[in-house]
């Protein structure tokens, strides 16, 4: 009896030691996620509060715990400023035990936070930013570029439009890194598909009156006017192109258009436009189910960026579970090893360069007559398979060489 008791006690202690050992695997006894996004600026509709809600949903749907330790979501506004973003990241990693930073909308903030994360050996899960250098010359071993990039937008919209007969192009470009990358990527695709670029104009960012640029685009005689901009700039350019009757003879190609843009433009203005997206809420039963839950909380349907935040975090939690630790190196290895198949991504795989390659969709905006219910905005015209949608790993990224 006495012996049995001591055995039990010993067993109990062993179990306790066992759990203590497991606990030690999760740093700080908590898995802490920082959603660093644009809460009030130009991109706050396509990311912002919606991204925070998506992150909270991901944590709740995972049971609020991973490896028995609570998941905590915190958030902050980086104001689309690189210095603000890197300062917050530093503070989060150093003082607040943040394990991973999610979203990072706008390329300048993403590129500022990535080296900080790499230096601290913590993870960045980029959903909002688009520039290809993120997985190219600026890539790090601790980053995942999850939702989309400028290359996939260029391939999707650029190639589709050329194939439909839009051979000659003129670009209206937002005069900063993102706009220029988007223009360069799209030009390559247009030329490779047999099209021709007739010219471009670089408009200061932000611009509200596009009439001068639209007149220049009109004078170029190009069939297609490519809008290498985003957010409010795209919205105003599309609105004014309609006003100036440009859309009667020439067509617009919005190279980066989000669901939130279409929602605020309205279908009468946006109808017929082609765009590329990583996610559309009404694509199938699974995406609808998740999106309706999101809608309950946010009162708006999710953009691809917000859905991407949810999916990237779920994948991250799964990787922690599979690795049995939140150690960044081991979790990154698992994330790159495990495929992604959920409501967001089909055939998803994260490459050595950190780019998440998955199927993308070419969509066309419905006319008001085709739209049957609220948020019924897109027709999915084509699925672009992952190998076609994203560029192959670029050896300029050191992780690829290894």
């Amino acid at each position, binding site marked *: 009896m006495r012996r049995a008791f001591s055995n039990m006690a010993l067993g109990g202690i062993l179990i306790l030691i066992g759990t203590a050992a497991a606990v030690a695997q999760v740093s700080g006894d908590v898995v802490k996620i920082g959603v660093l996004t644009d809460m009030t600026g130009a991109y706050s509709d396509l990311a912002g509060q919606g991204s925070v809600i998506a992150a909270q949903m991901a944590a709740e749907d995972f049971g609020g715990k991973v490896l028995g330790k609570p998941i905590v979501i915190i958030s902050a506004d980086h104001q689309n400023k690189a210095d603000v973003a890197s300062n917050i990241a530093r503070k989060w990693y150093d003082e607040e035990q943040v394990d991973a930073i999610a979203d990072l909308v706008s390329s300048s903030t993403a590129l500022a936070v990535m080296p900080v994360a790499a230096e601290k050996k913590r993870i960045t899960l980029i959903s909002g930013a688009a520039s290809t250098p993120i997985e190219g010359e600026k890539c790090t071993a601790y980053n995942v570029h999850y939702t989309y990039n400028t290359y996939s937008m260029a391939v999707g919209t650029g190639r589709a439009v050329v194939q439909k007969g839009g051979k000659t192009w003129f670009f209206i470009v937002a005069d900063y890194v993102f706009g220029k990358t988007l223009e360069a990527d799209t030009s390559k695709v247009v030329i490779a598909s047999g099209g021709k670029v007739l010219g471009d104009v670089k408009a200061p960012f932000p611009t509200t009156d596009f009439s001068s640029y639209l007149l220049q685009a009109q004078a170029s005689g190009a069939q297609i006017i490519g809008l290498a901009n985003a957010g409010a700039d795209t919205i105003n350019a599309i609105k004014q192109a309609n006003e100036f*009757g440009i859309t009667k003879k020439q067509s617009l190609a919005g190279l980066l258009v989000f669901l939130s843009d279409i929602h605020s433009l309205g279908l009468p203005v946006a109808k017929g436009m082609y765009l590329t997206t990583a996610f559309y809420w009404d694509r199938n039963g699974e995406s609808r189910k998740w999106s309706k839950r999101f809608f309950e909380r946010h009162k708006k349907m999710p953009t691809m960026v917000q859905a991407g935040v949810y999916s990237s975090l779920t994948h991250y939690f799964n990787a922690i579970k599979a690795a049995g630790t939140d150690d960044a190196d081991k979790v990154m290895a698992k994330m790159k090893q495990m495929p992604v198949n959920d409501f967001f991504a089909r055939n998803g795989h994260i490459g050595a360069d950190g780019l998440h390659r998955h199927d993308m969709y070419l969509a066309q905006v419905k006319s008001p007559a085709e739209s049957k219910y609220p948020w019924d905005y897109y027709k999915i015209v084509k699925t672009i398979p992952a190998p076609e949608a994203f560029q192959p790993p670029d050896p300029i990224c050191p992780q690829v060489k290894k």
Partner: protein
Amino acid sequence: MIQALSGQLLVGLINGSFYALLSLGLAIIFGLLDVVNFAHGAQYMLGAFVAWMAMQYLGINYWSALILVPLAVGVLGMVFEQLVLRRLYGLDPLYGLLLTFGLALVLEGIFQNAFGISGKSYPVPDLLQGGTNLGFMFLPRYRMWVVVVSIAVCFGCWFMIERTRLGAYLRAGTENPVLLQAFGVNVPLIRALTYGFGVALAAFAGVMAAPIYQVTPLMGSGVIMVVFAVVVIGGMGSIAGSIITGLGLGLIEGLTKFFYAPASDVVVFVVMALVLLARPAGLFGRQL
């Protein structure tokens, strides 16, 4: 080349008439009240949003909005003047500037919270749909309307303030309020009306802008910088100066967009710096 250039000049004129309309209200408020109204951009935004809400929730069309919205927003302006702003008269203008800047932030914050950053789309009224082909460019009918109305309103205001008895009272209210009051004129009421009128002009510009630009919470903060430059170049408080400068800067900006687009958002400020170097009181301002 000539064709393209005439198109750009015309577009410049259209934008210029917007600048003139907006800077007019600002110049009136500064010229007659000595208040630097930093909330002018937010009040312009308010005009556009109230027009959108009136259409969405009350079914009020563009034409009625053009009259009703400036009245409503103008009254709000007067309430603000009566409750808060008037307490700062006679102090350093910096206080008024800070107060109105705060008001602008509050207004923008409220609308951003309610409608998000991408804002709402306001349709062009049916009567002004379409446009005319001028050969060198397609001129939308709505833009033509903007130019005509802006110039008419600007001239009307200038005439009222500089050439009528009411205008004389208004100007006297700044020059010597005590004496004017002694003549039995209700100076505080005149001041409230003046501020309300300036605010109503901003709201009027907002309604005019709604069908062209996306109605967003920050639509005023972008344009207000340029408009301030217009007022400074024209000569703080000079009404005719603001109108002429507004149109002129629109043209200069239009040309810049044609020859070297990336500089188009700084050209206004370059002009401002040059003018201030040569004439510190602005082109039409009274020399200090």
